[in-house]
């Protein structure tokens, strides 16, 4: 394994070096006895490597020709290539940014001084997780990808198990471990079939596979299941809320902001192998995206756990990305390149945007947990007083994730709306009539409306009003090392909104390469989306706010100003417990979507003429999990109970299984 190190010439080399450094950044800490220096060293290495790698990724997006590296390994899987094309670079960029932000954040969130043992683990596995995700993105070989995939799954699992004493964490960890390996099984099917067809584990060139319909079908479905389970597409999302809620906040940020996208990358990469796709595949991805978006945000609106809510909203965002991807695939299959460009640009921009605002929100939730010691939204309130810097940053993230102007979330959704509206608009012979695509617009609108409910609830119940539980009222603001990454991400959200054309520039090379259009045609199609005007109107909006604010201030200052308590409609003894809680806020919408989620109330001990004090508890129930997936797993459990006899815990017999399997395979493969 020899890399030529020449930073001036080769961006791929610098990226590979950055990945290696990040992966090994946790090691020095293990060797040092004193806690502290190891963490600082690791953060230093990660930040420098991330900056170096980002420069490389940007240069590849700028069109610097990328070399291909050959990994000379002694394993019997054939030569293994590593390479970075614009598609990989597009995914590497947010990954490295998240590496920078999250490692810096960890310095204050999990300081080595107070938690030496935990810190060492978290630092090591964060580095491994980042490097393995990056390796998935640069691998051009099935076996290497699977190896990286497995390291990614295990290191994220180990990160999730940081607080291993907690029963909740153990449960979430078990579900995650099972789900991720079930997904990996599908990937084994995918890459074995690939090897069977092409004779090698190496990835075929783009659009080079022309397969029989049956093999293509199995490969596509395997990719959708295997990569889709990691991306958290409905109904393969069951592991996601628990895993993302229970990991340390900066690990949640990595898992939610980046790891889900690696699943999306897998789908996109696999699809690119094929010359021709069945027409239904694009519609299937679109449909799964729509279902994920609506059910994801519906689930999120009913959550009371801060991080669980954010995790469910990740399902929604993955859904939006899949809607864009589905549009692009439908466009490609039906020769509608306008739709392909608009859909793919929308999906890619949303991938970048989500990798900005979701880590921002997860890091913000870490600051909230740091201050209050709880994840229960209904116990918080009025936190903007004790977190005066976190609050506006969290507000930026909340507005961005709702897709509201003037922030970056609006830009990605704008492309998807254009895709939905585009049908029949560009009548210069390069489209086929797809009227059904129009139905995407109302779906996106509904999702946007639900997102506003969810995030008004989140921001309002957490930061506004007064504390509902005195125990949460005495926290303190997060230290600078936590605020700085959040500020950076929030700043990028603002830049994405006010400089919308920049976002398009970032994704353009990947879209051009993937759709196979000329840059001129791409520019022609993308110019239809008025990004410059949007930036200008965003500026106008801010100017308008300023003018209205000045007028208001002038009017207020002319007349007396008084302070008083909140008007309680005549009630004179208000308490903070009277406030609308987060659950109360979403109760109305939960009632409308009770087919998906519900809140079951249990009232106990109320009887007789003079009832004693009683208790009312409500639990959020998820219908898809409780009524579809768990019963079907029970059924599977019942059918496969006899297999459990093989699981007896005797190590030597397990080794025997491996030997027997190998022996049978050897006999079978003999001619």
């Amino acid at each position, binding site marked *: 394994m020899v890399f030529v190190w020449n930073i001036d010439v080769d961006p791929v080399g610098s990226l590979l070096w950055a990945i290696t450094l990040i992966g090994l950044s946790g090691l020095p800490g293990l060797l040092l006895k004193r806690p502290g220096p190891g963490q600082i060293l690791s953060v230093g290495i990660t930040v420098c490597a991330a900056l170096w790698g980002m420069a490389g990724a940007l240069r590849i997006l700028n069109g610097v020709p990328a070399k291909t590296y050959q990994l000379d390994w002694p394993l019997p899987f054939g030569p293994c290539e590593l390479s970075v094309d614009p598609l990989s670079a597009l995914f590497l960029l947010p990954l490295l940014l998240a590496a920078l932000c999250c490692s810096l954040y960890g310095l204050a969130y999990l300081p080595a001084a107070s938690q030496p043992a935990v810190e060492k683990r978290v630092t090591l596995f964060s580095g491994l997780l980042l490097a393995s995700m990056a390796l998935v993105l640069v691998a051009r070989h099935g076996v290497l990808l699977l190896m990286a995939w497995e390291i990614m799954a295990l290191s994220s699992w180990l990160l999730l198990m940081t607080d291993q004493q907690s029963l909740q964490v153990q449960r979430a960890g078990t579900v995650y471990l099972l789900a991720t390996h079930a997904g990996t099984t599908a990937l084994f099917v995918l890459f074995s079939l690939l090897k069977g067809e092409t004779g090698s584990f190496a990835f075929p060139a783009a659009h080079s596979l022309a397969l029989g319909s049956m093999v293509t079908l199995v490969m596509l479905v395997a990719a959708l299941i295997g990569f889709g389970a990691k991306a958290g597409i409905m109904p393969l999302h069951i592991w996601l809320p628990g895993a993302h809620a229970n990991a340390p906040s900066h690990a949640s940020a990595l898992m939610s902001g980046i790891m889900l996208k690696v699943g999306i990358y897998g789908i996109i990469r696999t699809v690119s192998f094929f010359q021709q796709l069945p027409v239904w595949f694009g519609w299937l991805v679109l449909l799964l995206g729509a279902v994920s978006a609506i059910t994801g945000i519906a689930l999120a609106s009913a959550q009371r756990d801060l991080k669980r809510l954010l995790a469910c909203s990740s399902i929604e965002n993955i859904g939006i990305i899949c809607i864009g991807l589905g549009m692009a695939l439908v466009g490609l299959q039906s020769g509608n390149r306008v739709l392909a460009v608009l859909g793919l640009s929308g999906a890619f921009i949303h991938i970048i945007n989500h990798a900005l605002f979701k880590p921002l929100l997860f890091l913000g939730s870490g600051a909230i947990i740091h201050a209050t010691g709880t994840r229960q939204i209904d116990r918080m309130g009025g936190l903007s007083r004790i977190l005066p810097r976190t609050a506006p940053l969290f507000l930026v993230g909340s507005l961005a994730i709702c897709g509201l102007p003037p922030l970056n979330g609006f830009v990605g959704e704008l492309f998807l709306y254009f895709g939905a*509206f585009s049908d029949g608009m560009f009548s210069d012979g390069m489209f086929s009539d797809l*009227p059904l695509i129009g139905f995407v617009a109302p779906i996106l609108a509904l999702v946007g409306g639900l997102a*506003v409910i969810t995030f*008004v609830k989140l921001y*309002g119940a957490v930061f506004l009003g007064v504390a509902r539980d005195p125990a949460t009222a005495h926290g303190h603001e997060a230290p600078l090392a936590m605020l700085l990454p959040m500020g950076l991400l929030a700043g990028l959200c603002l830049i994405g909104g006010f400089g919308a054309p920049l976002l398009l520039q970032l994704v353009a090379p990947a879209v051009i390469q993937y759709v196979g259009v000329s840059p001129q045609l791409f520019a022609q199609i993308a110019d239809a989306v008025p990004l410059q005007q949007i930036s200008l109107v965003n500026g106008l*909006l801010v100017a308008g706010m300023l003018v209205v604010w000045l007028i208001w201030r002038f009017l207020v200052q002319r007349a007396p100003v008084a302070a008083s308590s909140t008007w309680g409609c005549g009630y004179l003894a208000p308490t903070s417990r009277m406030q609308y809680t987060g659950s109360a*806020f979403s109760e109305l*919408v939960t009632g409308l979507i009770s087919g998906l989620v519900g809140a079951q109330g249990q009232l106990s001990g109320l009887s007789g003429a003079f009832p004693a004090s009683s208790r009312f508890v409500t639990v959020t129930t998820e219908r898809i999990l409780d009524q579809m997936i768990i019963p079907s797993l029970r059924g599977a459990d019942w059918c496969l109970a006899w297999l459990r006899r093989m699981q007896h815990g005797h190590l030597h017999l397990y080794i025997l299984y491996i030997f027997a399997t190998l022996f049978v395979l050897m006999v079978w493969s003999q001619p």
Partner: protein
Amino acid sequence: MMMSILFHVLLLLLMPPLLLGVINKTKAAFAGRLGAPYFQPYYDLVKLFRKGSVFSSTTTWVFRAGPVVTLAATLVAALLVPLGNHPAIISFNGDMILFAYLFGLARFFTTSAALDTGSPFEGMGAAREVTFACLVEPTLFFILITLARMSKSLSLTPMLLYPSPTVWGEAGAAMLLLVGALFIALLAENCRIPFDDPNTHLELTMIHEVMVLDHSGPAFGLILYGAALKLFVLGAVFVNLALPFKTGNLLIDWALFVVAMLFLAVLIGVVESVMARLRMVRIPQLLVAATILSAFAMLLIVR
């Protein structure tokens, strides 16, 4: 050219409160009262702007930003809509999406400001506002996408100036469905009867009014003006669809538009006089019905 733009902006800024005056006068006529003068909403605004302010001690800057951001977003949205036969001040492809999302931004800040007071009533109003608005959103987009397909354009100005007597003749059924759905959306978005009673006196039954209980003085004036502006803007969209007569003469078209807007205000007043407010549980059903109406219109157009 400059004159017409100036007139457009002045109409946009000055006319909205008059609609409220006309609505109230109509309701008074139905009730057999003389009613407040047509210009009463203007007097109210002037009075509010000169009053002092009271701020609850639980509130933060979000409470103060609420009315400001809401009005600014509504103003920018207003610039995207053509009035009568005159094109919008700002017009570009895709402005209708921005139009819808600006109202989302306004809603985010109105409801956040309500939650900032820590009042149970305002929380209740905010929850209702976001939930019902979420159900109106798909209706609005079904209407927009149907209009976009009919007019083969992606901008509000050509879209809304497209309907003409010939269009009504050819696609009358779809247009009728659109106008019906848009009227329901208009009433719901502006919190009029049958969705919300602006004159109700019981906080438990309010939606919009209860959210702004704690705002006072100039801030409340901004809120009332913003609400009137929103009614005017959505009303202009409605009038453009429902009344497709254009003469080509700018002055006559302006006059037609103003008369039509006043007629719309009378219509809303009549609806408010002859109908009772719906029970809270019925509101989502009516909104979903409106969504289905607009989806029908789209099916008729794309088939």
